[in-house]
């Protein structure tokens, strides 16, 4: 029964059942190559700098957006969340499973401290876009030597 759907492509090859024409050895080789691939990093992140903004884009399809946590400490951004499996397939027989599920956490260090505003999060079509404004005042505070000089204090 479970041999009714075959997937053939350069990444997954042909996963299937004992009836697979490649045999178990070939399938195991493909699974190993998948495990070694950078696919295991989830979610992948792109970071752009645009004027006084840092823009982080990441793909998290099927995200429970209400459960998403974004924590910013100075120049570190931590994204934490969960992808839950579809309830409809909870008891179903699994023929192929490639999609990353469960809890995830990514920590990204930006070149400058940033400010976080919840309203700057945008989630559309499984793409999460986060905009962080550079925190200029924080930059000064994090360097007390400069702040002291600016206040007229001397060394």
């Amino acid at each position, binding site marked *: 029964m479970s041999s*009714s*759907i075959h997937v053939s*492509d350069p990444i997954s090859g042909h996963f299937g059942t004992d009836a697979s*024409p*490649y045999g178990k050895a070939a399938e195991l080789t493909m699974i190993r190559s998948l495990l070694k691939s950078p696919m295991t990093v989830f979610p992948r992140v792109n970071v*752009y700098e645009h004027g006084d903004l840092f823009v982080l884009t990441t793909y998290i399809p099927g995200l429970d957006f209400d459960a998403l946590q974004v924590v910013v400490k100075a120049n570190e951004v931590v994204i934490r969340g969960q992808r839950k499996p579809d309830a409809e397939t909870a008891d*179903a027989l*699994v023929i192929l499973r490639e999609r990353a599920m469960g809890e995830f956490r990514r920590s990204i260090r930006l070149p400058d401290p940033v400010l976080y505003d919840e309203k700057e999060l945008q989630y559309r079509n499984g793409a999460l876009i986060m905009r962080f404004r550079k925190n200029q005042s924080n930059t000064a505070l994090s360097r007390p030597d400069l702040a002291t000089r600016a206040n007229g204090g001397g060394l």
Partner: protein
Amino acid sequence: MMRNFTDFETNKPLGFDIHGSQTAPAVDIFETSDFFIIAVDIPGINLEDLDLDLKGNVITILGKISDEGTESRCLVSEFSPGGYFRRIQLGDAVDTRNIRAVLDNGVLKIKAQKKSRLPRRIPVLA
């Protein structure tokens, strides 16, 4: 053996970048008593940029992400938003006339009904 690694239409070996910058999306396939359910991660794809075709018993998923040329400076690049391409061959147990698909938050869910296994009565004429 190589036959199974070839493109269904062009008969060219796959894995040689014949589809440009498109990547193969991750796929889950489940089987219930009545359905096969195929879940495909295609984040970043608008509904109007998705082509989902069925030819014979082969489903083709093609999603394009338009390049929104930006003046931003890229600091970290862990993925390339180029689009998706993947083909999935359905077996004989799938009723290809009863396939529905939904795109929800970057997940394409294809639900294909199984063929009825009940015997069909054949009318006999006198």
